[in-house]
């Protein structure tokens, strides 16, 4: 997020900075107590309509608390912190809580550092102006909370006191000193005091006493280790540093002077000012870095921001909807045109086909029965006729088969056609029946042959051999699918009893069943 405009609000004045990627310049400063000056600021807002704006507060009315809270997670934590904030800062929109550490003993509570502005009467006019001007404020930050980040490039202890100084615009001889005590990169306490530099007062001594007071306060709260010396980082204008350096240091404190220009450069800022103040460096730091959680969330700005967001959303949605509509409509129209061209060609083909159909109709001048009916009736007649066991093929079969078997005489023959159901049963038991069924519809006949051995001499072996030869001859005939002897001159089945009298001179008889198939296509 690139911030365009940063509003730096101190106790008495408002400074407007314009931020660039590597630099920041002061545009103007406005006296908060001067209505004319604030009217000028309002006018500036209307004329310039700044884009994304950040508000940085450096006020003396900010309070700080250290609160142990039970270690809970999720929604409960939020509710717990919220309840504590409401208790400390009732009906205030300016409160911020940050988890510092967790106790290692006892209930192992979480330690929260809570800061807030109980009375925001000084800030409200500015917020009201911003809201009325429909300025979108991306965040409201407090300077002390960013102090730890300010001194990151500098080597320092885990517990230290940072002293910064801002020269007040309204008065040449007044300086605002802010003492921020930082523990483990988290703000524990901050205090702002105003010191007047005049010939009658010793500013260095006053500052030393202020630092000693702070040390005493921290020591009383047992924040500092016993018999340890407190590190004090002094980020002061050169004139103030010179003044203070002649004064001896506060007791139990070690002073470390920070060069503002070097610090500013280490943060990547090439400010136009020769000696940037701590506020300016923090302002640049805030502007340079991307999105960060806002410390304070005034309801009045949230209201404006919500409407601005709705407007932005609607604008983006409008563009998106219009773009999508144009794209999809274009695609539809292009597809429609393609289909239309194809339809014209299809219509031509349809006309040709229609003409062809008319020609075919004219050529096919037929007035007889329906062709499908003729086909069905012919098929029916073929099925019916196929069941006919005409005598000619039976005679031919018998004549061909009995040729050469003079000793076997045929006494009787009977043939009959098998019914459709008998055919199906027979074919189901026959190997390859399916293939044959696919090729043709078959009609089956059973021919029963009853004969006798007219010249029998008592040689059953020979008689049986001849009958089997006859059966083999029958099998070789075309259309024969099964030949089965139903009676032999002598039944030699091992499972049967045989009894015969040698005096029996009757003529041996035999019978054979022949199954024929006549294929019809």
């Amino acid at each position, binding site marked *: 997020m690139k911030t365009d405009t940063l509003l730096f609000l101190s106790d008495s004045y408002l400074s407007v900075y314009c931020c660039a990627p590597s630099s920041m310049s002061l545009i103007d400063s406005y006296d908060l107590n001067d209505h004319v000056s604030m009217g000028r600021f309002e006018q500036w807002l209307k004329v310039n309509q700044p884009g994304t704006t950040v508000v940085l507060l450096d006020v003396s009315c900010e309070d700080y608390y250290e609160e142990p809270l039970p270690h809970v997670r999720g929604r409960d934590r939020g509710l717990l912190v919220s309840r504590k904030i409401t208790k400390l800062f009732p009906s205030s929109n300016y409160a911020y809580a940050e988890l510092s550490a967790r106790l290692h003993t006892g209930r192992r509570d979480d330690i929260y550092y809570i800061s807030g502005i109980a009375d925001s009467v000084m800030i409200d006019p500015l917020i009201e102006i911003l809201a009325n001007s429909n300025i979108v404020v991306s965040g409201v930050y407090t300077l002390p909370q960013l102090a730890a980040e300010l001194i990151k490039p500098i080597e320092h202890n885990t517990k230290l006191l940072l002293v910064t100084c801002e020269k007040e615009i309204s008065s040449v001889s007044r300086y605002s000193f802010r003492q921020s005590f930082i523990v483990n990169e988290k703000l524990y306490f901050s205090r702002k005091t105003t010191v007047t530099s005049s010939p009658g007062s010793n500013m260095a001594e006053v500052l030393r006493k202020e630092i000693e007071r702070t040390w005493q306060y921290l020591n009383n709260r047992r924040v500092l280790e016993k018999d340890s010396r407190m590190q004090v980082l002094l980020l002061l204008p050169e004139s103030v540093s010179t003044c203070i350096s002649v004064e001896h240091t506060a007791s139990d404190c070690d002073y470390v002077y920070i060069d503002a220009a070097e610090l500013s450069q280490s943060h990547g800022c090439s400010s136009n000012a020769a000696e940037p103040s701590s506020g300016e460096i923090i302002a640049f730091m805030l502007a340079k870095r991307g999105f960060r959680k806002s410390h304070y969330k005034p309801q009045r700005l949230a209201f404006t921001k919500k409407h601005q967001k709705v407007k932005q959303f*609607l604008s983006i949605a409008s563009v998106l909807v219009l773009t999508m509509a144009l794209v999809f409509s274009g695609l539809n129209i292009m597809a429609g045109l393609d289909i239309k061209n194809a339809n014209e060609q299809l219509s031509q083909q349809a006309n040709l086909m229609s003409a062809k159909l008319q020609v075919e109709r004219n050529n096919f001048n037929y007035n007889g029965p329906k062709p499908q009916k003729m086909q069905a009736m012919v098929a029916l007649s073929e099925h019916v006729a196929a069941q006919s066991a005409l005598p000619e093929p039976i005679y031919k079969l018998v004549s061909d088969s009995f040729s050469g078997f003079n000793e076997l005489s045929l006494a009787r023959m009977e043939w009959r056609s098998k019914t459709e159901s008998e055919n199906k049963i027979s074919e189901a038991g026959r190997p390859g029946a399916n293939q044959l069924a696919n090729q043709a519809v078959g009609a089956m006949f059973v021919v029963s042959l009853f004969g006798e051995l007219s010249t029998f001499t008592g040689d059953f072996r020979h008689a049986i051999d001849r009958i089997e030869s006859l059966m083999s001859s029958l099998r070789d005939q075309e259309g024969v699918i099964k030949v089965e002897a139903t009676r032999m001159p002598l039944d030699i089945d091992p499972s049967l009893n045989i009894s015969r009298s040698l005096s029996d001179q009757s003529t041996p008889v035999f019978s054979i069943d022949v199954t024929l198939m006549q294929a019809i296509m």
Partner: protein
Amino acid sequence: MAYFQFSLVKQSVFLFSVVAVFSVILFGSSFFYKQEQLDEERAIKGKMRSMQARISNIAHDKELVNTYQGVYKRLVDKGFLSNESRLSWMEQLERTAGRLALPDLQYQVDSQSEIKQDQYPIPHGVSLFKSQLTFETSLLHEGDLLELIADLQILPSGLLVVQHCDLSRTNTTMDNSEKGNNLNFKFHTLCDVSWYTTGEIAVPDLPSNSEA
């Protein structure tokens, strides 16, 4: 302070509404235009399919007519599509018996029965009828049976189907008083033949094939 003031975003909402309505109209119009073209394409293709099917049907009908018209005509001539004619059968049997000198020919014709649909592929709207004729006679020669059946087959009185025949050798000498000589009948036969005819069923829902 109100949570949300519509007046602050009224202009944006109006602009968005206009854009949305315009977009909907634009997209809807283009969509309907495309759908219209698709419908037209579908209609033309359907019409073409229908015409193609009609052309194919005509070609198929032509092929069927070429293939079956002759056979069908023979079936008509054969009387397969007409009522049975029992009198013709009896007359033919008597004529044949006289010609072949079969004085002991006996026959019996059963009542006509309708064949069930599942036995044969009977077309819709058609009934298949069967009348069974059983005859028994002595034969001088086995060829007489061929002639007897051939004489019955040429009758234009339906489709003749020989279902069963029993031909046995005998040594019977019969006195043929009409001819005044003794004939040596060497065979005896018993046959069951059936006459198949068809008839049309009147189906009110379907057009009758009166042209047939």
